[in-house]
């Protein structure tokens, strides 16, 4: 069977239209499927989630360990055992290096020697979301700085931008290095950036972040925009500091280091 030029163009045109219509239909059904999700009515709500870490209440090494373990185990954070490939969502650092701009030589010994818990600050003006070329990291309306592991291209611009060293990159396949995989939370593939997510997946189900729960009152979590919230009252009564406030990022993690 020979096909002349005219017929070829006709069939080619029809095929293109067919593919176009089919594609459009697929798109519409998929869009419908996505919009089909409705938020749960038992999730926690806030205008601006924030955290208070009362370091005075952390006394033993065990207190820190419990908190870190709670986070890293449910979020499938791998343990590579070397600082080069290290991935961490919440960790400890000494006072001097946690607050390099607030160090003086005459800090009380118990403060100087006390480890500080560090995690993503979920900044109001987050430099990481500003620089991301694909919106893989973005601000949620509730103030959480979220990370989409499936959109991230692994350019690591966010890691250069973060003034708090809060972000980790999957330099290698993390899966073999996860002790017990939690099937409730995604594991990551090599080549993407990750960090603390303020436990969005728990907030949606009405639970506070895992670290806050494990801290047994040493850490508070609540709505910074609500003057009546527990953490706002706590901040009214206690003097708090934040990391590198001079950068204008407005961190949402507050530290109470001393006083009554």
């Amino acid at each position, binding site marked *: 069977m020979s096909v002349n030029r005219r017929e070829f163009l006709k069939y080619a045109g029809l095929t293109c239209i067919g593919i176009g219509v089919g594609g459009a239909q697929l798109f519409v059904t998929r869009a419908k499927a996505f919009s089909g999700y409705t938020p749960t009515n038992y999730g926690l709500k806030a205008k601006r989630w924030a955290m208070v870490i009362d370091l005075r209440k952390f006394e033993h090494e065990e207190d820190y360990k419990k908190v870190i373990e709670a986070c890293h185990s449910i979020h499938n954070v791998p343990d590579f055992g070397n*600082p*080069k*490939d*290290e*991935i961490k969502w919440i960790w400890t*650092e000494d006072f001097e*290096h*946690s607050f*390099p*701009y607030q160090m003086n030589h005459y800090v009380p010994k118990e403060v100087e020697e006390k480890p500080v818990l560090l995690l993503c600050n979920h900044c109001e003006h987050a*430099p990481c979301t*500003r*620089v*991301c*070329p*694909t*919106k*893989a990291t973005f601000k949620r309306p509730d103030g959480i700085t979220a990370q989409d592991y499936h*959109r*991230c*291209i*692994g*350019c*690591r*611009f966010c*890691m*250069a*931008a*973060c*003034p*708090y*060293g809060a972000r*980790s*990159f*999957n*330099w*290698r*396949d993390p899966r073999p290095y996860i002790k017990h995989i939690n099937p409730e939370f995604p594991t990551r*593939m*090599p*080549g*993407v*950036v990750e960090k603390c997510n303020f436990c969005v997946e728990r907030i949606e189900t009405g639970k506070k972040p895992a670290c806050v729960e494990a801290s047994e009152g040493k850490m508070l979590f609540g709505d910074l925009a609500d003057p009546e919230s527990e953490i706002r009252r706590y901040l009214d009564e206690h003097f708090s500091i934040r990391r*590198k406030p001079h*950068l*204008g*990022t407005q961190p949402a993690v507050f530290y109470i280091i001393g006083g009554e």
Partner: protein
Amino acid sequence: MLEKALQGGKRYWTLIFILLGLAGAGFFTYLYQLKEGLGITGMSRDVSWGFYVSQFTFLVGVAASAVMLVIPYYLHNYKKFSKIVILGEFLAVSAVTMCLLFIFVDMGQPMRIFNVILHPTPNSILFWDAIVLNGYLLLNIIIGWNTLQADLKEVPPPKWVKPLIYLSIPWAVSIHTVTAFIYAGLPGRDFWLTAIMAARFLASAFAGGPALLIILAMIIRKYTKFDPGREPIQAVAKIVTYAMVANFFFILLELFTALYSNIPGHILPFKYLFFGIDGHMKLVPLMWLSIFLAIFAIALLVWPPTRRNETTLLFACIIAFISLWIDKGFGLVIGGFVPNPFERVFEYWPTLPELIITIGVYAVGFLVLTVLYKVAISVREQQLS
């Protein structure tokens, strides 16, 4: 016109095959990186950009430098550049090709590269960098190819090329300005947080790129029948001289602000680069080498007899290029990450696979350059006969 790239002597094909071999080695090592992840490089949680991004930054400068030939020729009607402008434009094509490849090999998830277009994000400087770099690549291919073809046919270039040439001038400035903005707008990286970054980038670009052009022009003169000419080379040498001095001046400005203000965050990266911190001093010898080579090169370039003597000029250009490469192709990026945001020192050094991939990308760039220069030189040789 491209067929001229297929008609070469034994030396030409040897060069092509050597470059192909190096590019192949880089490609296979890249496949290994693709399989294992970027963990095979020296990069870490603390120094999250390394050799690839450094080379990208440096080569953007080489690309932008084409404008140093375009401005005198097209804006000031400096006729002596008429034969060599094409060398600048094709060098730009080759350099931008390498820039794009370096960005590509640095990505953790390269299959998702089109997310940058699928989810355009104007507040990200990388988005703009992708636009200006691709635009500049296209501009130089179109301009270079059309003007060369016109030369071959001994007719003036088509009229529509002129506006593109004028556009390419601010565009060249834009590629290096936008690249500087990648660094200069980040809070918390004090080493990069400096308003003079873009100006310094341009100064070092206008020194390094033209220095490379002089080296290439002398190679061309030696191995082909096309002589770029003594006078154009001397004119480019003056450009290198001014830009080298400007760049060195800008570095001194950086040092003044950091040291006189006495702000630790601004001093520490310089301290790390030039003296080391707590015994961490992997970059110290390189950084001092860069400074000494820069001073030596400036001395040779500023003193007229050594600038006019082509042997010393060539030497000055080589050491200037090495000095600028160390400064921008290594120290600039690493200095931004050391010390880290906790003011702790975690050092970086490239690994062997990382170096092979880097050499592979350079080989691809020089392959593009060789082919394009072969075409350009063949046209010039034909004009002579």
